[in-house]
C-alpha cells in the first residue's frame, strides 16, 4: 500500500465544487431560495482541503534559516488519475531538440532520436505555486459566494448563478492543478466559458449580451496563441507533461518542467538553462504564451474586454474579473518560468507589455465615472504591474508577482464587493456622479472600502504597500544592477544578446530570439521602473478620487434607490469585513516573515537554475518604499484637493487636462480602432459570405430540389385513380419492353 499522499486530497479541491455545481443544477428549482447551499458547501469544503494542502506542502519545504542554508529543494507531488490519450511512436523529434538530450535518458546514452509516444495523463500536481493559487481561489470564491446570498437574493437566476460560480471554482482549480499543457488549455477554455456565462448572466440586457460576446471573442485571440504554443511545445519537447514520467521500459521521460530537466540525477543543478528551447522557437513559444496570458489577464492590446465585463453581476466581477481568472495569465508565466528564462527577449516583452498596460489603464482609470469601471481599469493596471514584475525573470520578480496577486485578490475582491454593496443600496446606480456622502448611509461599506483603497494605493502598512514595494524592487534591481551588487544580472543585461546565446546550448536554433534580446538593456528597465512608479501615483489618485466622490461630500442618493437606501445585509458585510482584515494584515505578515517567497521558491519551475541563481536575500528597500509612498501620497493629496468633500457631480480635476482628457475618456480610442480595423472588415466579409450562402449556395440547392417536383408535376396528371387506366399503362409498358426486346433480337 502506497503511503498516504496529500496529492490524493488534491483531487477533492476541484471535485467538491463540481459536485456542488451539479447538485445545484439538478436540485436548483426545488431548492429555490436555498439554491446556494450545495455550491457554498462544496466551495467551503474545497477551501478547507486547500488550506490543509497548503500546510502539508509547506512542511515539505526545507527551511532557509541559518547561514549555511542548502539550496531549496523542489517540492512536487503528482496524482495521475487516468490516461486521456495514449499513442505509441507518435513523433520522432529532431536530433538536437531538448526532447532528445542524451543526458536525460541515461539508459540510452547514444540513442538516435527515438519515436516518442503521445500520452496525455489526467494528472494533478501539488507544489507551492499550485497550493497558493488553490487557497486564493477557494477562499475568495467562498467569500464571494457568501456575499452573493445577499446580493443575488430574489434574482430569478439565483440557482444558475451559484451553479456557475461553483463550476468556475472547479475549472479554475483544475487549471492551476493540471500538470499538463493540454489540460491547462482545456481548463483555460473552461474558465473562459464560465466567464462568458457570468458576464452574460443578465442576457436579456443587450449590453450584457454584447459584453459577454466581446469577452469571449477577444479571449479567442489569446487562446489561439496558447493552442499554437502547445503545438510548438510538443514539437520541441516531445511531451506536454510538466512532470517527469517513467515509460514502461523504465526510461525516464523528462517532462517540460520536470525535475530531470531542472536538476540532474545526482542532485546537482544543471548549468544555465540547459534543456530548454531557446532561440527562435523558444522565443516564439514564450511570446505565444504571453499572448495567451494577455488575453486572459486583459493586458494590452487585448484588455478591451475587461471593462465591458462589468456588465455581469458584481460578485462575478469580484471573483472572476478581479481576483482569480484574470490571474491565470500570471500563473501560466510563473509556471513556464524556465521557458521564459531561456529567452531573455521574451521576458523583456513581458515587462514592456505589463508596464505599458499598467500606465495606460491607470490613465484611463483617472477619468472614469462608473465606480465598477474605475475598479476594472485598476485591475488591468495592477495585472500589468504583475506582468512587469514577471518580466524581470528573477526569483524576486516571480515571487513578488505572486505576492501581489495574493494581496490584490484580497483588496480588489474587497473593493468590488464594496462597489456591489453601494450598487445594491443605490438601487442599481453605479455612476459616481449620481450619489455622494454615502459614509453616513453605509458606514461598514465605507470603512471597508477605505481599507481596500489604502491597500490598493500602496499606503503602509496595508497589503498593497508591501507587494508593490517588492515589484518595484525587482524592477529596480534589473534597472540598476550594480547598485544591488548583482554582478550576474549586470553582466546579463549589459551583454544582451551574447548572454542569450549562451543560455541555449540545446536550443533548436541559437538565433537571436526574434531580435527581441536587444531590448534587454538597462535603459529600457529604467524606463519601465519609472513608468511603474508613475502608475503607483496614478493608482492612488484614481482610487481616492473614487472614495472621495462616493463616500464624502453632501449626502445624495439617486431616486432609483427610493427611500430605503440602507446598509447591506450581514451576508454581504461579513465577507467585506473579513477581506478588509486580510487586506490589512496579510501583506505585513507575509513580508516580514518572507514566508511566501521562500515557500514559492520550492516550486519546481522556480528551482530552474536560471531563476534560482537570481535569488537575492530578503530585504526591505527603504529608498524604494520612500519613493513609492511619496508617489502614493501625491496621488492621494491631488485627489483630496479635487474631490474631498465636494459634490461628486461638480467640476472635476480632469478639466485641467485639456485634449488629454478626451484621449483618456475615450480609453485611448482602442475600441474605435478595433472597430475600424478589425470589426468592420470582418462584418463586411461576413455580409459577403452571408450573401453567397443565402443566394448562391442556397439557391443552387433549392434549384436542384425543384427538379423532382417539376418532373413529378408532369407525371402526376396520369394519377387519375381509375383502375383501367393504370392497367392500360401497365400493358403499354409491357408492350414497349416487348417491342424493344424484339427490336434488339432482330439484329
Amino acid at each position: 500500500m502506497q503511503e498516504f499522499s496529500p496529492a490524493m486530497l488534491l483531487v477533492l479541491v476541484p471535485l467538491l465544487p463540481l459536485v456542488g455545481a451539479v447538485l445545484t443544477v439538478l436540485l436548483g428549482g426545488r431548492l429555490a431560495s436555498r439554491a446556494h447551499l450545495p455550491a457554498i458547501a462544496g466551495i467551503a469544503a474545497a477551501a478547507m482541503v486547500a488550506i490543509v494542502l497548503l500546510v502539508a506542502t509547506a512542511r515539505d519545504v526545507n527551511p532557509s534559516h541559518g547561514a549555511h542554508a542548502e539550496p531549496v529543494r523542489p517540492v512536487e507531488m503528482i496524482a495521475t488519475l487516468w490516461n486521456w490519450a495514449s499513442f505509441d511512436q507518435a513523433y520522432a523529434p529532431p536530433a538536437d531538440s531538448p526532447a532528445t538530450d542524451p543526458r536525460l535518458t541515461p539508459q540510452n546514452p547514444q540513442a538516435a532520436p527515438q519515436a516518442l509516444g503521445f500520452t496525455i495523463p489526467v494528472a494533478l500536481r501539488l507544489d507551492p505555486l499550485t497550493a497558493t493559487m488553490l487557497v486564493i481561489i477557494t477562499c475568495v470564491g467562498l467569500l464571494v459566494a457568501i456575499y452573493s446570498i445577499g446580493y443575488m437574493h430574489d434574482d430569478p437566476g439565483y440557482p444558475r448563478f451559484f451553479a456557475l460560480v461553483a463550476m468556475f471554482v472547479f475549472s479554475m482549480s483544475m487549471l492551476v492543478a493540471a500538470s499538463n499543457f493540454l489540460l491547462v488549455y482545456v481548463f483555460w477554455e473552461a474558465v473562459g466559458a464560465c466567464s462568458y456565462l457570468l458576464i452574460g448572466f443578465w442576457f436579456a440586457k443587450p449590453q450584457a449580451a454584447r459584453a459577454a460576446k466581446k469577452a469571449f471573442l477577444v479571449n479567442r485571440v489569446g487562446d489561439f496563441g496558447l493552442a499554437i504554443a502547445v503545438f510548438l511545445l510538443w514539437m520541441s519537447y516531445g511531451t506536454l507533461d510538466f512532470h517527469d514520467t517513467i515509460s514502461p521500459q523504465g526510461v525516464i521521460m523528462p517532462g517540460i518542467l520536470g525535475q530531470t530537466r531542472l536538476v540532474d540525477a545526482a542532485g546537482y543543478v544543471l548549468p544555465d538553462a540547459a534543456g530548454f528551447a531557446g532561440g527562435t522557437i523558444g522565443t516564439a513559444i514564450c511570446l505565444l504564451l504571453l499572448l495567451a496570458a494577455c488575453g486572459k489577464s486583459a493586458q494590452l492590446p487585448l484588455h478591451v474586454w475587461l471593462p465591458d465585463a462589468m456588465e455581469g453581476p458584481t460578485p462575478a466581477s469580484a471573483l472572476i474579473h478581479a481576483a482569480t481568472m484574470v490571474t491565470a495569465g500570471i500563473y501560466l508565466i510563473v509556471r513556464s518560468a524556465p521557458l521564459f528564462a531561456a529567452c531573455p527577449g521574451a521576458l523583456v516583452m513581458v515587462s514592456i507589455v505589463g508596464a505599458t498596460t499598467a500606465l495606460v489603464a491607470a490613465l484611463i482609470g483617472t477619468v472614469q465615472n462608473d465606480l465598477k469601471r474605475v475598479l476594472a481599469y485598476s485591475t488591468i493596471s495592477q495585472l500589468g504591474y504583475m506582468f512587469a514584475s514577471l518580466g524581470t525573470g528573477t526569483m524576486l520578480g516571480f515571487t513578488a508577482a505572486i505576492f501581489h496577486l495574493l494581496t490584490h485578490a484580497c483588496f480588489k475582491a474587497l473593493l468590488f464587493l464594496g462597489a456591489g454593496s453601494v450598487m445594491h443600496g443605490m438601487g442599481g446606480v453605479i455612476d459616481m456622479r449620481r450619489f455622494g456622502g454615502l459614509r453616513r448611509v453605509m458606514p461598514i461599506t465605507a470603512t471597508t472600502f477605505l481599507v481596500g483603497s489604502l491597500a490598493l494605493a500602496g499606503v503602509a502598512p496595508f497589503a498593497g504597500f508591501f507587494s508593490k514595494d517588492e515589484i518595484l524592487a525587482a524592477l529596480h534591481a534589473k534597472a540598476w544592477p550594480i547598485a544591488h551588487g548583482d554582478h550576474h544580472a549586470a553582466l546579463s543585461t549589459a551583454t544582451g544578446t551574447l548572454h542569450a546565446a549562451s543560455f541555449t546550448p540545446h536550443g533548436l536554433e541559437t538565433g537571436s530570439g526574434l531580435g527581441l534580446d536587444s531590448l534587454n538593456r538597462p535603459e529600457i528597465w529604467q524606463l519601465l521602473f519609472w513608468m511603474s512608479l508613475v502608475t503607483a501615483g496614478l493608482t492612488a489618485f484614481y482610487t481616492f478620487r473614487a472614495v472621495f466622490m462616493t463616500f464624502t461630500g453632501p449626502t445624495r442618493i439617486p431616486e432609483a434607490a427610493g427611500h430605503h437606501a440602507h446598509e447591506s445585509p450581514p451576508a454581504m458585510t461579513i465577507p467585506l469585513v473579513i477581506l478588509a482584515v486580510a487586506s490589512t494584515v496579510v501583506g505585513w505578515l507575509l513580508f516580514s516573515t518572507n514566508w511566501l517567497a521562500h515557500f514559492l521558491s520550492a516550486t519546481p519551475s522556480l528551482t530552474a537554475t536560471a531563476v534560482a541563481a537570481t535569488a537575492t536575500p530578503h530585504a526591505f528597500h527603504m529608498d524604494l518604499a520612500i519613493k513609492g509612498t511619496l508617489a502614493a501620497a501625491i496621488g492621494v493629496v491631488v485627489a483630496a484637493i479635487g474631490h474631498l468633500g465636494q459634490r461628486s457631480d461638480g467640476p472635476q480635476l480632469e478639466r485641467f487636462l485639456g485634449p488629454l482628457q478626451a484621449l483618456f475618456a475615450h480609453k485611448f480610442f482602442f475600441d474605435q480602432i478595433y472597430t475600424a480595423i478589425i470589426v468592420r472588415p470582418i462584418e463586411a466579409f461576413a455580409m459577403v459570405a452571408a450573401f453567397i450562402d443565402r443566394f448562391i449556395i442556397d439557391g443552387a440547392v433549392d434549384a436542384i430540389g425543384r427538379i423532382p417536383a417539376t418532373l413529378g408535376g408532369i407525371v402526376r396528371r396520369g394519377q387519375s385513380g381509375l383502375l383501367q387506366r393504370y392497367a392500360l399503362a401497365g400493358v403499354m409498358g409491357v408492350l414497349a419492353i416487348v417491342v424493344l426486346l424484339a427490336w434488339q433480337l432482330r439484329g
Partner: protein
Amino acid sequence: MNAAQSLPMLQNALTVGAILFSLGLVGILARRNLIVMFLAAEMMLQGISVSLVAWSRYHGDWGGQVLVIFVLTVAACEAAVALVFVLQAFARTGRLDAAAWQSLREANLVRTVDHELPSIDTLPPRYPTLAPAGVLPPTDENEPLQREHV
C-alpha cells in the same frame, strides 16, 4: 417422338393460351365490374398456365406442369383474398363499379364521370330457388334484397 411432343400440338396449345390471355386482358381493360375484372385476370392466368403446360409437354420436362399446380394453388388463395376485398368494397358503396374508387387520384384532378350511364336492366332479377325443404326463413319486406344493379 410421340404425338404430345409434336410441334403442331405445341402451336395449337400456345394459340389457345394466347387467346385466353388476350381475352382476359381485354376483359380487364374494358370491364368495370370488379368481379368480372377479377375473372378476366384469372383467365389471363389460365392462358399462361396453358402455355406452360404446352411447353412442358413439348420438352418432356415436368417442371412446367409442377409450376402450373403451384399457380393454381396460389390463384385459389388469391381468389379468396380478392373476393373479400370486392365484398368489402361492395358493402361500402353498394356498387361493384371500379370507377367508384377514384379517391386515390391527384388532389387537383377532377373526378371522372360517365357521360352516358350504362343501361340498367329493368327486368326483375331472378334468383335461384332452393328445393322446398323445411321452413321458409322469414323475410323483411322493408329490407332491399338487391341493391343497385351494375
